[in-house]
């Protein structure tokens, strides 16, 4: 096992990794920017090194400074957390060449999964279900009609070099196809100077479901079941839960089997997450794979009892997984609410001094956070200040518990998204499992 690990991150995830290291008897080195000198992750680590100014490009993403710090502190491994350098294939590579173990997958796995088109192609080759669509750009009317027939309706036409809704057309019937195709082409040309468009199956109200996996260097891999991350705002998850109220045991096993096929297809090692889009009929399609620990990993820990960060470290140290698929026992239901330092109405950041921070207590409640009374949330980084995680025997109990935990979470001095979470956990649509990835956008438009 490693004697000392450097944690190339800040905030709650840096503390989370320090906790895992301490429980494994491993010494820790924190890095920090000048703005984070007084952070708890610095206080809790055995050693710390300032690696740059507030700007994360010059500190938390400063590869030379971080590697220097690892070198002179004799750190044997680096845990990247999430964000910053966590999915930087080059960083993984230079760590290895500098003789420091990168706690995560190989540079090859990271860069393969970082290229969405390539990854999709490989998955198709391996028989993994992906979102049906045209192979590259549509070559004309005939090609469009043919592809549409294969995919089925509704479908969406998108500009290849576009974004933000321009050059995008949802088509519900064959009669409308050619007209939409031409309009999209014209918009793409005028908007992006390129009239290439492609076609994909369209899902009206999809769910975002992901499978957590663990794979060791010996070729053993297991999945820990799914997480439902459909409550998002602008593609950023804000509430996650497991089990998904949409996923039954049969679907879970099937998704797990597919996720492990993805893992095997690229010889993936360490923790990872295979993300799927799921339609109302519980058909699911591979979207991408995240090659790191996720923000929402705690809910999987709550229902399985497995410490994912400790597993990451043990895998990186060359150890075998100590359990097989059939030994993983899931129990109960778990939710995570991301508490951000933001206005709950319009999500504008609200950094500043937290005058009082009192996290909820009692049974089934877990908080991961780097905040405390007297902490100043710096304006330079992610606005996440705490993750509130609850466990209950049933979804109903977990909802009741999350409500009371949100009610007793005291954060004074800054604005947070706690009131938004309180609203969602009182919303009948959410409680009755009637939601999709557009839930929050609809709610913001039609506040009730």
């Amino acid at each position, binding site marked *: 096992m490693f004697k000392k690990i450097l944690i190339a991150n800040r905030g709650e995830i840096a503390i989370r990794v320090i906790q895992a290291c301490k429980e494994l008897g491993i010494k820790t080195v924190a890095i920090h920017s000048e703005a984070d000198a007084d952070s708890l992750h610095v206080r809790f680590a055995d050693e710390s090194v300032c690696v*740059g100014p507030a700007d994360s490009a010059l500190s938390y993403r400063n590869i*030379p400074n971080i590697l220097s710090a690892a070198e002179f502190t004799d750190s044997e491994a680096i845990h990247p957390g999430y964000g910053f350098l966590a999915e930087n294939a080059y960083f993984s590579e230079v760590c290895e060449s500098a003789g420091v173990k990168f706690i995560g997958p190989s540079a090859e796995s990271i860069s393969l999964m970082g290229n969405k088109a390539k990854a999709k192609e490989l998955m198709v080759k391996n028989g993994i279900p992906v979102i049906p669509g045209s192979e590259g750009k549509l070559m004309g009317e005939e090609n469009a009609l043919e592809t549409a027939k294969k995919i089925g309706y509704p479908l969406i036409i998108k500009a290849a070099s576009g974004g933000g809704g321009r050059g995008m057309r949802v088509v519900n019937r064959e009669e409308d196809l050619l007209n939409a195709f031409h309009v999209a082409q014209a918009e793409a040309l005028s908007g992006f100077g390129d009239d290439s468009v492609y076609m994909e199956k369209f899902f009206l109200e999809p769910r975002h479901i992901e499978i957590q996996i663990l794979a060791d260097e010996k070729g053993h891999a297991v999945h820990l079941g799914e997480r439902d991350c459909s409550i998002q705002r602008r593609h950023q998850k804000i509430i996650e839960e497991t089990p998904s109220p949409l996923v039954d045991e049969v679907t879970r096993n099937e998704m797990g089997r597919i996720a492990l096929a993805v893992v095997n297809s690229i010889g993936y090692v360490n923790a990872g997450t295979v993300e799927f889009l799921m339609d109302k009929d519980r058909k699911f399609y591979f979207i991408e794979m995240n090659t790191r620990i996720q923000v929402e990993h705690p809910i999987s820990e709550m229902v399985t009892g497995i410490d994912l960060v400790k597993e990451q470290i043990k895998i990186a140290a060359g150890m075998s997984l100590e359990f097989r698929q059939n030994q993983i026992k899931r129990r109960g239901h778990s939710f995570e609410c991301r508490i951000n330092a933001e206005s709950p109405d319009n999500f504008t950041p609200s950094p500043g001094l937290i005058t009082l921070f009192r996290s909820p207590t009692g049974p089934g409640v877990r908080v991961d956070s780097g905040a405390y009374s007297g902490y100043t949330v710096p304006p330079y980084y992610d606005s996440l200040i705490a993750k509130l995680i609850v466990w209950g025997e049933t979804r109903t109990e977990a909802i009741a518990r999350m409500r009371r935990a949100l009610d007793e979470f005291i954060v004074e001095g800054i604005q947070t998204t706690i009131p938004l979470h309180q609203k969602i956990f009182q919303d009948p649509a959410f409680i009755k499992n009637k939601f999709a990835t557009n839930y929050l956008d609809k709610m913001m438009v039609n506040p009730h």
Partner: protein
Amino acid sequence: MNIDEIKEIIAILENTGITEFEWEESGVKVRIKKGKEAWALSTGTHESHIVRPAAEELNPAPEGARPEEIKRSPHQKMIKAPIVGTFYRAPSPDSEPYVEVGSVVKKGQIVCVIEAMKLMNEIESDVDGRIVEILGENAHPVEYGGPLFSVEPV
């Protein structure tokens, strides 16, 4: 009220939990405020790898961070480490140090090297002046912003 009285008040306040103090003489107005202290200073087990006290004392701390004390002449400037690595006063073990206390340096003049990623990086002074103190320890690691030399204007 004169400067000596103010000094005395500061000395008194220094050892109390008082965080704000106001006084208006003519109409006699007093205002005293107490608050919690910065716990960061009382950290028990934490041992920094870096020669930290100097660094803490001298770095411009970010908003709302550590209390700072003015200990040196306000005219003195600091040459700080622009990268993380190992500080060397000379280009090689057998060479003379680039500068000594008393040396006069110019902007752009090399004052030390910091070894990082197996590379020797020559560090240039970003001020003109005379070296009054060498704060980095030879062959020891230095973190970003760590103080290397104290410089006074000539």
